[in-house]
C-alpha cells in the first residue's frame, strides 16, 4: 500500500516492476546491484529527463545568476576580448538517443 509522506509518494518495487506517471511516463526498475538501482525511463521524446541533482544544480545556478546587479559588470568587459569575428557556437544534432550512462 503506497504511503504519502509530505507530498512524496513512497512505493516499493521489485526488479521488473514499474511506476506510471500520467499517461506518458513509466519508470521501470531494471536492475539492483549492491547499493545501486538501475532505472529505465519510458517517456515521449519531448519529455525532459535528467538526474535530479543536475536539475537542482541548474535551478540553483539560474537563481543566483538572476540576482546579478548592473554594477557587477563595472569594469570587467575589458577582460574578455570581443574583437574576434562574431563566431557562432557549432551545434550538432544527436543522431540517436544515447543511453546517458556516461553522464
Amino acid at each position, binding site marked *: 500500500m503506497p504511503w504519502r509522506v509530505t507530498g512524496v509518494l513512497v512505493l516499493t518495487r521489485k526488479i521488473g516492476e514499474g511506476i506510471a506517471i500520467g499517461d506518458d511516463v513509466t519508470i521501470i526498475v531494471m536492475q539492483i546491484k549492491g547499493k545501486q538501482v538501475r532505472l529505465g525511463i519510458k517517456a515521449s*521524446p*519531448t519529455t*525532459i529527463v*535528467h538526474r535530479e541533482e*543536475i*536539475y537542482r*544544480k*541548474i*535551478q*540553483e*545556478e*539560474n*537563481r*543566483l*545568476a*538572476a540576482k*546579478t*546587479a*548592473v*554594477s*557587477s*559588470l*563595472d*569594469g*570587467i*568587459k*575589458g*577582460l*574578455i*576580448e*570581443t574583437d*574576434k569575428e*562574431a*563566431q*557562432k*557556437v*557549432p*551545434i*550538432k*544534432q*544527436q543522431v540517436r*538517443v*544515447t543511453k*546517458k550512462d*556516461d*553522464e
Partner: protein
Amino acid sequence: MLKVQTTRFGEIEVDEKDIIQLPSGLIGFPELQRYVMLDHDKDSPFKWLQSLDDGAIAFVLINPLLFKPDYTVEVTSAEVSDLELSSEEDAVISAIITIPGNPEHMTANLKAPLVFNLKNRKGKQIILNNAAYTTRHNILEEVRKHTTEEGGAAVSQEMIEQVKATQEEAKDTRKKKEVANKK
C-alpha cells in the same frame, strides 16, 4: 510598443517584434516566458536577458566562444522541433553568467546553455550530457589558458587590480549617495 518596469533599467519600451519567447521559460523559472535582449555597453561581450514578466529578473549572457573557442553543443531532435529550428545557421548559443563578489571568479553555465532561433525568436535552456562542461566554468581561467597559448596579452594582475579599484570606487560613490539620500 510595450512598456515594462524593470529594477535595473527603470522603464523600458519594447517593440513587439523584439520579444524573445522561451516557451518552457528557464530552469527554475518556468512561468517567465517573455524576454528582451539588452546591450550592456558598446564593445562589451555581455548582454542582458531581461524578463518582461518580472521586471526584477534579468540574466547576463555571453557567447561562450569568446573564452572557450572549442565549445560545441549537441541538441536533441526534440529540442530542434521545440524551437522549430530548420537550419544550424539560425541557432545562437549563449551562456548565463554568475558573478560572485569578486569579478575574478565570474563563471558561465556551460552545462545548461541557452539556444535561440533567430528566425522565430524562440529560445530554450538545454542541459548538455557532456561531462566536460559544468554549471560554473571559470571564465577568466579559460581566457588565460587560451590567450597565453596564442602568445597574446594575458589577463594581467594589473588589469584585475584595476577592475577591483573601479568596483570599490563605484561602491563608495553609491554609499555616499545612500547616506546623502537618507539625510
